[in-house]
């Protein structure tokens, strides 16, 4: 699959294509989604109890890394990692099974509307509540902030407190239901996110695909897998940045020679090499701990998040620097790689959050 994706990026996802996709869809492009389905990438979401074959999480992250080399804007991680990892761990049901099959075919896209525990909110804390109505339906009210992948999804996976209890419910909500209000906006890297308000949204009882303590555990595992997937993205971004920079400095001539001949440039490239090797190594370590008990898993994931983000920012910033004025323009990949890295750094908890998780 690695080679399939690498070829897809090389042949079908140039910077020009990416620019067109951004202009046409303002983030969350579905235009390429059918290609993802055709290439079989979406079937990574299928658990063993549905498909013939259960892919390993390792397979998924390989694909994520290769997609990131093209700085793709489609919500692959949001769907095939975050939403899928949650759904995989929910008990089988008609709704849950059909949703996963539709995701694998590319017919449905899902955004996870959960509250980020590491989010720093000044004023009110977002709360979403689900109440059982006398009709047997569930009424959902509340709000979610900065949900990635929501601007073109047809379903939402919403976590809500069950009224009158301390339990959490995981509910599948159709984006087009009355009472679901979106405020979509762009992010700095041409992707998009949405604030969502739920106003007495009515869903059937069987839309609740999980409830109780299990939900906490499912979300916690999925969150850590999401972080690892973001780290795989970071690795792709780092490798690709280093590669295009190495090409650029060999081509660019000033003072009568290729700037790659200057020692300061060579050392900067060497630094990039060291950053990415260290990042990849800690990534493997955290991958090895992904199925461990929560405490051990969290420490491993947080170490990786911290180090990879730090190294990734240093590397992509250096890549811009080595491109000179051209590094600041939209016409070269490096500025897009840097912005993706900034995004990855601030999503899923920043360095401060992960450093304290490591120290617990």
């Amino acid at each position, binding site marked *: 699959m690695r080679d399939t994706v690498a070829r897809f990026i090389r042949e079908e996802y140039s910077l020009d294509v990416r620019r067109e996709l951004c202009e046409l869809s303002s983030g969350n492009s579905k235009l390429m989604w059918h290609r993802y389905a055709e290439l079989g990438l979406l079937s990574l979401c299928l658990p063993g109890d549905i498909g013939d074959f259960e892919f390993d999480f390792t397979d998924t992250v390989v694909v994520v890394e290769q997609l990131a080399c093209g700085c793709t804007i489609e919500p692959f991680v949001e769907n095939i990692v975050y939403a899928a990892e949650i759904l995989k761990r929910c008990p089988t049901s008609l709704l849950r099974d059909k949703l996963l099959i539709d995701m694998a075919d590319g017919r449905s896209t899902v955004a996870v509307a959960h509250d980020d525990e590491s989010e720093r909110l*000044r004023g009110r804390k977002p709360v979403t509540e689900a109440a059982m109505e006398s009709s047997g339906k569930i009424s959902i009210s509340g709000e979610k902030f*900065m949900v990635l992948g929501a601007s073109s999804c047809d379903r939402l996976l919403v976590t809500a407190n069950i009224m009158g209890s301390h339990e959490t419910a995981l509910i599948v909500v159709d984006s087009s239901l009355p009472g679901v209000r979106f405020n979509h*906006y*762009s992010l*700095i890297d041409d992707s998009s*996110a949405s604030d969502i308000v739920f106003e007495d949204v009515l869903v059937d009882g069987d839309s609740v695909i999980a409830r109780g303590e299990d939900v906490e555990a499912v979300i916690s595992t999925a969150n850590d897998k999401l972080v690892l997937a973001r780290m795989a993205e970071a690795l792709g971004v780092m490798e690709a940045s280093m590669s295009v920079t190495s090409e650029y400095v060999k081509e660019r*001539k000033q003072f009568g020679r290729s700037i790659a001949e200057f020692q300061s*440039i060579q050392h900067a490239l060497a630094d990039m090499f060291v950053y990415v090797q260290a990042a990849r190594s800690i990534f493997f370590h955290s991958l090895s701990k992904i199925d461990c008990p929560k405490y051990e898993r969290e420490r491993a994931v947080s170490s990786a998040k911290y180090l990879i983000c730090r190294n990734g920012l240093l590397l992509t910033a250096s890549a811009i620097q080595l491109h000179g*004025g051209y590094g600041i*323009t939209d016409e070269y990949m490096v500025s897009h790689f840097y912005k993706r890295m900034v995004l990855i750094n601030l999503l899923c908890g920043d360095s401060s959050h992960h450093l304290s998780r490591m120290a617990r």
Partner: protein
Amino acid sequence: MNLHFSDELVSFRKTVRDYFESVLPGDVKKRNYYLSYPPDDDDALLWGRLLHKRGWSVPSWPVEYGGCGWSELQQYIFEDEWMACGAPVGHWAATHMIGPVIYTFGSDKQKERFLPIIREHRYTWAQGFSEPGSGSDLASLRTSAVRDGEHYLVSGQKIWTSGAHHSKWGFFLVKTDTSCKPQQGMSLLLIEMDSPGVSVKPIRQIDGRAHVCEVFLDDVKVPVSHRIGEEGDGWSFAKFLLENERTASSFVFWNKREFCKLKELATKEMIQGSPISKNAEFSAKISSIAADLLALEWSVLRVLVSNDAQANSAALVSSLKVLGSQLQQRITELQTEVLGKKALRSFQLDDLERIIPPDGEVWPDYAVGKSTIALHCRASTIYGGSLQVQKTIIAKKAFGL
């Protein structure tokens, strides 16, 4: 060695501050709070005109050309208060670059024609130096100016020309003689930007704005009377111009202002229920920047008041740029880190009325523009002589390497 500002300087500071606070329009201040850098061109001109009213539009110029005759320290205080009051950054291309070249090397006619325009901030000027093939190696530039009677025919391409799409005039470094050493074959020409043959293309950048441009020159007819000095003087004028603003490239006052914003953000944003300013990790990062900012400020002061050995001064000036540009990046990066995820939202800054978010509690207005500035600051270690070039200058001048 006197390490304190005199009473006269303290009272001068108050005079300046009082004037600024009384004239800065509220909407300009607000727009500039979000945009920060580069400022809106019209706002920058408006502010320049307000300064001109008070006779302060070109205080560092010789008195005979409209300067104020201030000391270096008065100049320093003036710029410090300018940034602190929230006014837009000045249009240096005119007042600090081409202006001094014209009053030092221009003919009387040129001084008469152009100096009042610059003093009065009537419009902006474009600096046409860099080319696609000539960035750090400016001497290799190729835009040619061929003499044809009383005109030059200028052809070539300039790049990274800030604000060229708004400018009325530009000052261009061109090749008038290709038979000699590059540095001896250049001239400085003033070109009207709406001359036939001039076309400007804004370049979309990392921060979503398109402030720098490519300027294409296609057989543009430029009168010989628009040449400053003689043919072949161009390189020395460029050096004069680039070396003239010794401390400006430190962006010290801008850094101070952004640092104040950073501290403000840190009191407003929360982490686990307490203000971020109380969080050990963030507080340490902020203190570290505070120390570096003090070092930068005092470095600037030392350059201004001391008569240090000439050999070191070019190295000192370069070190100001090295420190200052990296501080620009650290401060604006930390601003986005304090905001956390909120910094990831991109706001369209060209229509400020529309972007003020509706939900102040979740989307405070101070979140607007922060990531834009931080992204723009990736350029601060590149323009005006990249980090690598500055370090080479220091190695040569401070160590004789």
